[in-house]
């Protein structure tokens, strides 16, 4: 048994029953998600049977919204990796109730994202070729290595941060005993001894320090898939940091949305408070400003230089008959609105912050579309294809179904996770580890050993004499 303080016991009594029951509206929402997922499975079967010809992708636009979704999901995975990693390392006090949600977002989206890459592949049956014939020179292999490491890393991070709760749940009297068995397995005999705590805290610190550069690397590598090609709108040196900033921006947005949903449907009002929305809102605002700055810099530079092919892409973005309104939404509304609403205290409240987060996240999806599609529609040697579907990409029903089922899967996994671990950490992580004290103890030990060795030597010398 592990001893829990009063606060943790109260939290455990609040969350554990929630994990084994499901409300009527919960069942309804679950069915809704399953309908979308079944739609996606149907679309997947159609694509496998009929081939890629059922998508809107063609020889010029070789990648469609699948790759947009891929970037989008990997982007929102930043919620857990960067936000919770940084907040953990900085020992930010208010992070506790939101950290689990952030880490779950990371694991789920890092899992779903790469599925979209697989949907882009013409020969899924040859997936093993990546392992057998993989060439380290190819940015796709960089991606495979980075994302798989990142996925494993974020699972470890989530798991380490959940061990304390697993131990608490192990000792909780569930009706069905299999749960206790599962928690016993995952709690790895954690009892809350000071030695266990010390190791666990150190492991958590190490993992959050590892996960931050790993996350930065993952999105940089992803940006380089595009940045490494000689294409207008892609071949840009700022692409890696630009993608990283966009990813943290969208990750924070999704975290705010998730907090809002859980606060509402899981009665977490006493855990997730206005403070969390305010602080995350301010982080969102700063990232929005940074992202806006990158966007401005990117387009200003290519417009001012005005090379023919750069201009061709830019004209498409600013042409009202092509992409202007989408571009206006993605690069102006989606950046400026969150900044304005959060900047002015009068506008700042839980609902408004969530609303602008929804807008920012949607805008970022559109922005990824505008990075991928117009550039692919504008090859260096001007396109002279006569077939309209080869000139202009438009996603087909199959692609939309798979997109929506990806979002539904995201929520479904979230639901499943919330039934396995408390959505808010029950046992508070101990921040009181005194590192200078720890270092002193370790130093003392080393000095003691040295002295012992010296003494031994002396004794030997005397013997020798």
């Amino acid at each position: 048994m592990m001893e829990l303080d009063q606060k943790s016991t109260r939290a455990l009594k609040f969350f554990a029953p929630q994990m084994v029951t499901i409300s009527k509206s919960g069942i309804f929402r679950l069915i809704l998600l399953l309908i979308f997922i079944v739609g996606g499975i149907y679309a997947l079967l159609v694509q496998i049977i009929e081939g890629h010809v059922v998508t809107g992708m063609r020889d010029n636009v070789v990648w469609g919204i699948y790759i947009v979704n891929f970037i989008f999901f990997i982007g929102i995975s930043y919620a857990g990796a960067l936000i919770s990693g940084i907040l953990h390392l900085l020992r930010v006090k208010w992070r506790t109730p939101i950290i689990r949600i952030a880490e779950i977002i990371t694991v789920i989206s890092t899992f779903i994202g790469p599925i979209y890459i697989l949907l882009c592949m013409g020969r899924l049956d040859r997936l093993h070729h990546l392992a057998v014939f993989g060439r380290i020179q190819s940015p796709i292999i960089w991606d495979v290595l980075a994302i798989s490491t990142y996925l494993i890393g974020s699972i470890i991070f989530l798991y380490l941060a959940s061990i304390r709760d697993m131990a608490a749940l192990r000792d909780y009297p569930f009706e069905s005993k299999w749960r206790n068995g599962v928690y016993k397995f995952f709690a790895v005999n954690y009892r809350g001894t000071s030695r266990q705590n010390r190791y666990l805290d150190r492991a958590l610190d190490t993992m959050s320090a590892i996960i931050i550069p790993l996350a930065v690397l993952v999105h940089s590598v992803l940006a380089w898939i595009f940045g490494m090609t000689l294409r207008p709108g892609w071949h840009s040196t700022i692409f890696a940091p630009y993608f990283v900033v966009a990813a943290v921006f969208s990750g924070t947005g999704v975290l705010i949305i998730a907090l809002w949903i859980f606060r509402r449907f899981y009665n977490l009002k006493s855990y997730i408070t206005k403070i969390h929305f305010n602080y995350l809102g301010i982080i969102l605002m700063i990232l929005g400003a940074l992202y806006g700055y990158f966007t401005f810099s990117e387009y200003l530079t290519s417009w001012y230089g005005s090379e023919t092919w750069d201009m061709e892409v830019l004209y498409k973005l600013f042409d009202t008959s092509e992409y202007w309104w989408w571009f206006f939404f993605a690069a102006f509304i989606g950046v400026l609105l969150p900044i304005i609403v959060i900047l002015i205290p009068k506008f700042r409240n839980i609902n408004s912050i969530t609303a602008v987060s929804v807008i920012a996240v949607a805008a970022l999806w559109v922005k990824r579309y505008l990075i991928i599609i117009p550039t692919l529609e504008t090859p260096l040697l001007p396109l002279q294809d006569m077939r309209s579907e080869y000139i202009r990409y438009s996603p087909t029903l199959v692609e939309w179904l798979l997109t929506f089922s990806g979002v539904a899967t995201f929520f479904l996994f979230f639901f499943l996770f919330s039934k396995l671990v408390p959505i808010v950490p029950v046992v508070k992580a101990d921040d009181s580890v005194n590192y200078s004290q720890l270092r002193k103890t370790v130093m003392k030990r080393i000095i003691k050993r040295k002295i012992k060795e010296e003494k031994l030597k002396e004794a030997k010398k005397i013997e020798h004499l």
Partner: protein
Amino acid sequence: MSEVMKSHKRRNFLKTGAGLAIGLGAISINGLGTEPPIKDAGKKIKVLMPDGSLAEVDEKSLSTRTGSMQPAKGPKAKEGIPGRKFVMVIDLGKCNNARKCIEGCQKGHNLDTSQEWMTVHLRKDNHQSEPYWFPKPCYHCDNPPCVKVCPVGATYKRSDGCVLVDVNRCIGCKFCMSACPYSARVFNWEPPPKSSEANQDYSPETSVPGQVGTVGKCDFCPDRSRQGKLPYCVNSCPMGAIYFGDMNEDAISNGTETVSFKELINNRAGHRILEELGTYPSVYYLPPVDKAFSYERGLKNLSEEQKKKALENLSKY
């Protein structure tokens, strides 16, 4: 043109071409100057060097390198035909958009009519200049961006200059297609059309049969070079606008005449497309000068819709 005449001309080309290149294409000199002289030297024979001079070498130090006439398969297809460096020259002054190169290529590679490994664009260099027809194969770059990005090494560069695709290895990620600055690559969105050609054993040199879900492109027809033939597009061009040959031999041919590659490029200001990208293409263009016809003549081979689109593109300049 009748088939008989064509093959007659080809044979003529082969005679001249092969005659010129004796000692290089068919015979190679084993380690000339690097190995110790062979004892009991036999008869000396004269061979033509790449720079046009004659050299006398020992008969025994020569070995024939005819190689296989059959298209290479498996790992051998990665090596390239020894001693070759293929090059193509397209005379833009001669192209009138007959589109026969496209048809010949499609027939030879068992492609659907919607798939064009060779395309013909209507181009204009600037708003003052006259438009011209612009045949565009794969450029078989010496620094190929497509080969760099391939995650599984399904597309590769050979010693003879060809950039080939192994459709048995290709995973269909299409990264090569987005990396190619010349849009030379074509995806097999649907299975290739059924025909007798489709049953033959696959070789990256013939590119037949193609496979659904993989990438295809112009392969420079190395299988035909092995047999001493010119690529399908070169043979099909009624204007003789496309020359193909070996840079090492310094001999290229359009099927009717065989000329020196160096001379042609130097005398007629040969250039490559988007040289500034650093891709080093193997396809050169001769500028569209001294045209015997106006570009409008080529419009008749386009459908009404295509014509409209082509002229619309011109108005952009």
